[in-house]
């Protein structure tokens, strides 16, 4: 059976002025989605503008479907925001590579910048009370699920750009503080991160300086979502240069198919 299907909107709940939580009901979920995977959603109700589907991460599985946490950004997400309970959405998914499951004994540090939380939440949920969660956003009202995150994690660290909650500034700064207080040897940690690309680049550098493996979820403009159009290219070190440590050579990988989750050490930031 096909991963192209229609789902019914059970709820399209506003979380604040520009974020919503979409609950979808799928009569026959074709594939069980894994943390880090995503769906391409048709946001259009007839007509061809906007034309392409929009990519959204699996936020959380439900008993008969799943949820998507999204930020209203432009035309497509505005249309999605206007959809109502009972409306049908056509979509493709689940797509892409998921976050690798952390081995027992390792302590995941899960880092989310803004709506990047949408991608890592189900990972945190899948490993209750094992991870430290670092969650940064513009301000307090753009931080979601804090109670759940508190309960699901071993520790929850918050930052906001405006200082309205947690530490003022970037979440990477909070991570820096963490190294001073950590209880385990560094090789026991494992980083998972999703957020704006500059933040991910910063985290990749931190991870490599502490010799910690990091998995990041990337975003790129997508048309097909299934590896056919070659639109979603990201530069990764070519296998040879990974071996030699040279960054001269690179190859393009597809964010939709080879990712969206990549080993941060592979990416040419």
């Amino acid at each position, binding site marked *: 059976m096909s991963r192209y299907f229609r789902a019914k909107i059970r709820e399209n709940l506003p979380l604040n002025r520009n974020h919503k939580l979409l609950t979808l009901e799928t009569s026959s979920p074709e594939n069980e989605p894994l943390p880090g995977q995503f769906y391409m959603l048709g946001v259009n109700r007839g007509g061809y503008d*906007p*034309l392409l589907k929009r990519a959204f991460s699996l936020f959380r599985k439900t008993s008969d479907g799943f949820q998507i946490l999204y930020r209203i950004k432009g035309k497509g997400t505005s249309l999605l925001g206007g959809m109502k309970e009972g409306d049908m959405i056509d979509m493709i998914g689940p797509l892409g590579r998921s976050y690798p499951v952390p081995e027992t004994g390792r302590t995941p540090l899960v880092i989310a910048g803004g709506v990047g939380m949408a991608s890592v939440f189900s990972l945190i949920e899948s490993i209750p009370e094992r991870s430290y969660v670092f969650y940064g956003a513009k301000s307090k009202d753009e931080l979601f699920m804090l109670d759940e995150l508190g309960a699901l994690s071993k520790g929850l660290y918050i930052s906001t750009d405006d200082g309205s909650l947690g530490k003022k500034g970037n979440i990477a700064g909070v991570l820096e503080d963490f190294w001073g207080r950590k209880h385990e040897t560094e090789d026991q940690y494992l980083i998972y991160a999703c957020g704006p690309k500059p933040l991910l680049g910063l985290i990749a550098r931190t991870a490599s300086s502490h010799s910690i493996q990091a998995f990041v979820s990337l975003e790129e*403009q997508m*048309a*097909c979502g299934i590896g*056919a159009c070659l*639109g979603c290219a990201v*530069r990764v070190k070519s296998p040879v240069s990974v071996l030699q440590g040279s960054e001269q050579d690179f190859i393009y990988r597809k964010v939709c198919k080879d990712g969206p989750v990549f080993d941060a050490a592979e990416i040419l930031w």
Partner: protein
Amino acid sequence: MNLEVEIGGLKLRNPVMTASGTFGYGEEYSGFVDLNQLGAIVVKGISLKPMQGNPPPRISETPCGMLNAIGLQNVGLELFLKEKLPFLRKFDTRVIVNILGNSLKEYQKISEALDDAGVDAIELNVSCPNVQQGGIMFGTDRKMLGQLITGVKNIVKNTVLITKLSPTVSDIKEFAKTAEDSGSDAISLINTIPGMSIDINTRRPRLKNITGGLSGPAIRPVAVRMVYEAYNAVKIPVIGMGGIMNADDAIEFFIAGASAIAVGTANFVNPEATTGILSGLIKYMERENIERISSLTGSLDIG
């Protein structure tokens, strides 16, 4: 009901094909559509050596369309023959290989290998610059286009030759005639139309490559017009494409003169677009009492 069409001697079970570059190497869509149901699969353009393609962002959505500057990223001839073609051969459909090169020699080398490998047809993508001739496009210079087609035609023994015409010419009829006169068995059109889009807040182009090719419903009227003009200029079959989203769009192309159609950008929007269009065609034929799809070709009524 008869859905069969013939493209320069090559029989297709039905006239629904895929447009090069929008269907990967077939594999990518095999979980969505039964590839056996397609008239033909046209794969992503193949060059002699693998190509990296352009830096991202490579695509940008535009009103009713999209711009792409993939930069002809492809696995190259060798890997295609070794890894991609065997998969396609498992299906009972025609395999058409879109090819590109920087010189006649390159086109010839690829064509020869594909001919030996027994692919059903070669589609010449002539939107590439000729490096040896100072970067002039094969597709926009009639003399060069003619030489290219003749040069490839002389090399291939069994493979049907399709020339994919560039839409960036002032008179498509002339280029269609050149293709016919030079020995092309069929022509296909249109390729994407060069375009550009700018983010006014950053004043940056939305594509890293600055310009890209426009595809999707936005280009359909241009494509229909060009298919119509080309059909009236030549006797060889015309494969129509450009913004076909559903069966109605496809039918418009048949009426304008297409013998077969190719589905491109629509695959991204609906991965089942090809088979959906096929069933829509069948319904239309039933409703309109059309026995043979080929009778629809060029049936425009201009009163």
